[in-house]
């Protein structure tokens, strides 16, 4: 990416994001305006798509609510997204979990990833700092 664009994006990027990947069950806390007041709402689901980089990084989170599948796309670095917490790490073999759309009930279960280091978020941050120091 161009260094000037990087410089513009740098202050907009969040540094406290946890490490998440496709297949993880996450809870996204979004700020919504309701009747002139602002409050935070949680939205829990499985990440089926993780795309983009820099400010434009997005995740698509799918959940089934009252029998209807809902997919919401979140701009990860948006100030509207207050917090993202990882509830469960999933073991998947695809980068895009579109196959979940055709499945219902028990078939949508995702195997839990075992042996995940708890400090994954910290290691990711450390790795980022390391590459930064290099460049």
């Amino acid at each position, binding site marked *: 990416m*161009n260094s*000037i*664009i990087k410089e*513009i*994006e740098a202050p*907009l990027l969040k540094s406290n994001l946890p490490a998440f990947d496709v297949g993880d069950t996450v809870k996204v806390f979004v*700020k919504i305006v309701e009747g002139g007041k602002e409050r935070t709402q949680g939205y829990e689901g499985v990440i089926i798509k993780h795309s983009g980089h*820099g*400010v*434009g990084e997005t995740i698509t989170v799918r959940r089934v609510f009252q029998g209807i599948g809902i997919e919401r796309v979140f*701009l990860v670095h*948006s*100030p*509207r997204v207050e917090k993202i917490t990882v509830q469960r790490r999933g073991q998947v073999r695809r980068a895009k979990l579109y196959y979940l759309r055709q499945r219902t009930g028990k078939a949508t279960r995702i195997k839990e990833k075992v042996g995940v280091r708890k400090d994954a978020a910290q290691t990711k941050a450390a790795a980022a700092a390391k590459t930064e120091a290099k460049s």
Partner: protein
Amino acid sequence: MTLGVMGKKVGMTQVFDENGLAVPVTVVKLGENIVTDVKTKDKNGYEAVQVGGFAVAEKKLNKPELGNFKKRELSPLKPLKEYRIENSGAYTVGEALKVAEMLTVGMRVDVRGKSIGKGFQGTIKRYNAGRGPMSHGSKFHRSMGSIGAGTTPGRVVRGLHMPGHMGDENVCARHIKVVRVDVEKGLLLVKGSIPGVDGGLVVVTPSKSKWN
């Protein structure tokens, strides 16, 4: 044409507004924009200001070009652009254009640049013409249809849309909103896309007062 500033398109990204919504922006790196010559009615027959865009190395200019800068005791600049304005006397040779006064956040600007070249293209891409069916035994896919009637008029009307070279032409994107002006770093952020390739020359001028 009103006075404008030259810059180079850097690329696109997005920033967040006060409501937390993402705004797509194009980043423009502004040049030095130094007045190199002032044309007056008495001397030249018309009023204009000649502005040099970017500071370049001496070897990038040939001797006649360099001579002009030597005469005026300026550092070499490229490219030179003339703006026809009414009060050219208000400018002096060697001063930099005041970007902070010309461009403010929220105002509308026109951005001129050279569009990306598309090469030789058919009528579908070039003029949004329709096409025939691609299958079911059709032999009419993407080619042009009829170009006119027969004996009457007996010729092809002028300006008929035909295949040819597309892009690489001067394009002006009008009434674009300024999102941010950073005079210190020489950066300008405008909302949406602007013509040209990344690194291409663009000229940013304030839009007509109707829009500002």
